[in-house]
């Protein structure tokens, strides 16, 4: 269909796709602000300069990985340990990127893939994979723009006010990251039994690995990888190809 368009029509189509993506990304951008604000607080309270704190958010654009990596920097850990831990927490992006490689338009070239790939996060991925049909480059660019701005802006605000904020408030903000994850997984779990099953199984595996002493050698990052692979596998075995169930939950997560 795109092939039959004139270049003007194509530009219109791209602008529409970008705007549509941008609108889909806005709730994520606003959701990021309290979480990245918390990150800004934590990093500057720990002793990092404001510019470096903001640079972390801009260059990493990730929640769990940069929280963990920054904590290690603050405790004086070695470069190898910092890099490995961050990498392990971020391996999950490979699964998401792999999944998106199946859902994007095949004509999107390598340079474009290298650009929009930077903006894949748990939230932008979830939003993208819930969208019906193939994903265009313009849509993906629109989708990641707001979240990048929100994540960086929230970090800057947190870093700048950290001295002025009472400890009771910054402690309370520690829950923001997790509350955001809950906001993403609960609505689809409500509508789809397979998803509910997978979420509960993944949590159960994580708890078992964390609290059973035999498994105590497994680090936090690996726990998440093991729980993810096992429960998503179980889901694929017991509930194969439930395309409709997942797509139905689009509206819920979108607003």
């Amino acid at each position: 269909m795109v092939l039959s368009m004139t270049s003007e029509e194509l530009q219109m189509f791209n602008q529409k796709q970008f705007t549509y993506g941008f609108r889909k990304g806005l709730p994520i951008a606003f959701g990021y602000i309290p979480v990245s604000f918390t990150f800004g607080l934590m990093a500057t309270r720990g002793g990092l300069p404001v510019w470096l704190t903001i640079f972390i958010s801009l260059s990493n654009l990730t929640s769990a990985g940069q929280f963990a990596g920054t904590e290690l920097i603050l405790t004086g850990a070695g470069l190898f340990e910092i890099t490995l831990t961050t990498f392990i927490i971020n391996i999950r992006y490979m699964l998401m990127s792999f999944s998106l490689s199946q859902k994007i338009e095949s004509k999107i070239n390598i340079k474009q893939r290298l650009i929009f790939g930077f903006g894949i996060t748990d939230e932008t991925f979830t939003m993208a994979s819930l969208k019906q049909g193939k994903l265009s480059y313009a849509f993906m660019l629109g989708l990641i723009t707001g979240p990048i701005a929100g994540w960086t802006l929230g970090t800057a605000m947190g870093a700048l006010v950290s001295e002025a904020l009472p400890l009771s408030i910054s402690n309370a903000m520690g829950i923001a990251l997790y509350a955001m994850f809950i906001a993403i997984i609960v609505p689809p779990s409500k509508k789809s039994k397979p998803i509910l099953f997978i979420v509960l199984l993944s949590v159960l595996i994580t708890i078992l690995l964390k609290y059973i002493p035999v498994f105590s050698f497994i680090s936090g990052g690996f726990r998440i990888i093991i729980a993810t692979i096992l429960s998503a596998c179980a889901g694929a075995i017991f509930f194969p190809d439930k395309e409709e169930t997942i797509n139905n939950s689009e509206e819920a997560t979108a607003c």
Partner: protein
Amino acid sequence: MLKPFIAVLLMALVTYLPRVLPLVLFRKEIKSTFIKSFLKYVPYAVLGALTFPDIFDSTGDYITAIVGTIVALFLAFREKSLVIVAVGAIIAVYVTGLII
């Protein structure tokens, strides 16, 4: 600040690579129902494992964290937006902290 700066660059690299390598390397469509279903379920599995049980250690106090979790679950169940759920949980934790 040189060592922290290098650490941040390395973190950025190992965050970027997993995001783009599969996008660049896999350009053919996968037919397997198993792999397709597996990939669809990954985000839910990851977020579940990232959230529980770590959320209970997120505020420095179990009771405030439990109240915050319940409020977040309730708001999410009512399908409120990311912002409302995050801010609602923060307020719940803060208020509980004032009471106890």
